[in-house]
């Protein structure tokens, strides 16, 4: 038993706590908040306590994630745990702190005011982490202070007198290890029966950092805290991983492995899943009589669902790697190594991994920006991520390049013209990202003036349990938050290709609503060298970039003039080389991806950013394509 409560005489039971602890059974159980500094192992504890009984949403109006989990008490009462963001103080300097502070006071609509607080601290950094305790105690809620990572404290020869510590803090204290699961009974007992806290002299501490630090140092001293020895493993690993030469070398290696896996493992997995789902859809709905119902189910709903699910392999893979990198502590080192490079475009090292993974797919990349602490940097990273050449652009790139770029080899076959064209498109996207980042960081997202400071936690073995919970969590967030938008767009597109009916039959694509839309927009895209067929493709590919290839297939397939040709030949006949170049440039810049928009909406918790992003990228795509068409026409024509 590791829970240390105050002595009988020391505690002064407040009647409020008594009435609160008996209040249950009204459908909503007791609410308890978990709070603690970053890297205190708070989320590991939360995951251990609630496992998969978690719900994630955004707090209203901000981009902070609201995480709640249910915990069944021994007497059948339900306890709701709120995992508040990891913070160092309650001073409301950052969005995270503001949310935590408001949530603790019950000032957030729809979030129940917690009846008790569990403060999670890293026992190996006790004096640093204790500084959060006075502000929490000043809320006068029943409080339990958990000293996490007890196993590590012991191994590295640190110690603490819990009785004295509980005495000086004025709150019950328990030594636990969320990773090993030791001391959990103390947490459950407190959650079922929160003990009133007197807080005593912590209440007299001024609510500023130096005063809290002074208090923490004194409490540490008074309770005989012996800080653990420096982690030898961490020192040895950092000597290698932050070595002037080997550090960057290993960094490149790690980054390549992550990128290669997401790209070359995630993409085929997605494709297989897509085939499997198509097959399943035909199996499920193929037997239905042909008609609008079958088409709605198969081409509308099922296709929408399938296009949500195909993202899961890439999300799982990227978050597996990010989870491992973050939990081991390497992600912070990677950010340190990348910082100077990223600083040149006004961002910091934490943007590197998300931006790199955007080369595979912007969707998981944007979800991964949550590790970027600074809100402006985070939004800037989200806004430039879709410029990275993702794998969904490759089908249209490959098609156009194969159709229009002759395969000429230079330098003895070392350099091909087609490969060069492809590389050029990658560079184009990258440059657009650089320019956009600089523009953003010198205007609307001008740096907040906050210095960059990043804690380098000790290296630790990642917990499989926490990793699994996190992967499930990210998949749920994507499917349920972004999925709705994707499904709606899929249905709208289906309706537009299915209507207007003639003699009760759906029209050919050129006679459908979307075909008319393509014709309607033709005057606008004519300066880019595009005709109405490309116009239709631009509309259908708002759903996903690769859709344009299928749309071209359908359109040229029903056109008597191109029916007997291959898709490449049909394109060659229908577009000038300058227009083809304009088309790929358009795709390099335009945000033709509903899933990305849905994820940006979710991660920024607003429609403004995705709307601005879509508009900006569309404008850039239009201008880029126009300049390309004009330039190529003069060059090829003259």
């Amino acid at each position, binding site marked *: 038993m590791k829970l240390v409560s105050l002595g009988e005489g020391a505690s002064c039971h407040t009647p409020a706590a008594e009435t609160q602890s008996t209040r249950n059974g009204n459908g909503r159980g007791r609410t308890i908040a978990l709070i603690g500094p970053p890297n205190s192992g708070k989320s590991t504890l939360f995951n251990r306590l609630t496992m998969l009984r978690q719900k994630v949403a955004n707090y209203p109006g901000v981009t902070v994630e609201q995480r709640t989990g249910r915990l069944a008490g021994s007497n059948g009462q339900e306890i709701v745990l709120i995992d508040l963001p990891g913070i*160092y*103080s309650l*001073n409301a*300097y950052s969005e995270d702190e503001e949310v935590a502070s408001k949530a603790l006071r019950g000032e957030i609509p729809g979030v129940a005011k917690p009846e008790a607080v569990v403060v999670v601290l890293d026992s*190996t*950094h006790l*004096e*640093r982490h204790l*500084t959060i305790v006075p502000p929490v105690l000043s809320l006068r809620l029943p409080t339990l202070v958990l000293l996490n990572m007890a196993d590590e404290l012991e191994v590295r020869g640190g110690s603490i007198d819990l009785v004295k510590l509980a005495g000086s803090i004025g709150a019950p204290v328990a030594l636990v290890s969320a990773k090993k699961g030791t001391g959990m009974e103390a947490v459950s007992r407190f959650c079922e029966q929160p003990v009133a806290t007197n807080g005593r002299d912590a209440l007299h501490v001024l609510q500023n*950092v*130096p005063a809290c*630090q002074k208090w923490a140092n004194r409490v540490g001293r008074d309770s005989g805290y012996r*800080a*653990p020895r*420096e982690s030898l493993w961490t020192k040895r690993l*950092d000597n290698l991983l*932050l*070595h*002037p*030469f080997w*550090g*960057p070398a290993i*960094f490149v290696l790690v980054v390549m492995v992550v990128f290669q896996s997401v790209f070359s493992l995630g993409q085929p997995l997605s494709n297989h899943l897509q085939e499997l789902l198509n097959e399943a859809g035909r199996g499920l709905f193929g037997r239905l009589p042909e008609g609008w119902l079958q088409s709605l189910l198969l081409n509308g709903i099922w296709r929408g669902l399938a296009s949500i699910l195909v993202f899961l392999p890439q999300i799982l893979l990227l978050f597996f790697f990010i989870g491992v990198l973050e939990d081991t502590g390497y992600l*912070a080192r990677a950010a*340190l*190594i990348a*910082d*100077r*490079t990223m*600083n040149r475009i006004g961002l910091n*090292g934490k943007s590197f991994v998300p931006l790199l993974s955007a080369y595979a797919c912007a969707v998981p990349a944007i979800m991964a920006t949550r590790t970027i602490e600074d809100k402006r940097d985070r939004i800037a990273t989200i806004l430039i991520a879709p410029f990275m050449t993702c794998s969904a652009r490759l089908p249209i790139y490959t098609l156009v390049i194969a159709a229009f770029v002759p395969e000429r080899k230079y330098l003895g076959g070392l350099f091909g013209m087609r490969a060069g064209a492809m590389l050029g498109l990658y560079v184009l996207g990258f440059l657009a990202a650089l320019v956009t980042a600089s523009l953003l960081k010198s205007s609307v997202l001008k740096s907040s*003036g*906050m*210095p*960059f*400071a*990043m*804690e*380098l936690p000790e290296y630790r073995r990642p917990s499989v349990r926490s990793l699994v919970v996190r992967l499930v969590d990210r998949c749920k967030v994507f499917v349920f938050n972004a999925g709705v938008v994707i499904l709606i767009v899929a249905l709208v597109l289906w309706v537009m290709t299915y209507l207007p009916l003639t003699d009760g039959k759906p029209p050919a694509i050129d006679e459908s609503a979307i075909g008319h839309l393509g014709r309607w927009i033709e005057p606008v895209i004519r300066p880019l060298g595009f005709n109405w067929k490309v116009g239709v493709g631009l509309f259908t590919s708002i759903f996903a970039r690769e859709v344009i290839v299928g749309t071209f297939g359908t359109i040229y397939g029903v056109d008597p003039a191109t029916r007997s040709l291959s898709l490449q030949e049909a394109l060659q006949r229908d577009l000038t080389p300058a227009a083809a170049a304009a088309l790929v440039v358009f795709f390099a810049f335009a945000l033709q991806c509903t899933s990305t928009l849905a994820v940006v909406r979710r991660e920024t918790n607003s429609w403004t950013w995705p709307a601005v992003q879509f508009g900006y990228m569309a404008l850039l795509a239009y201008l880029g394509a126009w300049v390309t068409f004009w330039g190529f026409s003069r060059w090829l024509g003259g």
Partner: protein
Amino acid sequence: MKRANCMRLSEVPIGGKASIVEIVLPVAAQEYLMRRGFVPGTEVEVVRRGPLKGPMVYRIQGTETAIRAETAERIQVEMGAAGDAETE
């Protein structure tokens, strides 16, 4: 308390220890750094320089934190007063 051995944190050699005197930055930035351990009166040890001329790594009360050199330039420290007088 101003003494002759007062200098910038960025000037403390690797392996050296110093005590933070003050942070010469706007209040919000001071607050931000203090919450991450850079509290006046606390001892800082210079652990290493990040690779590729990256941020510097400092240890405060057992926690390693990286900040950029431009930030370390704004932190006034004094050496030798913090106890572990490695130069004397």
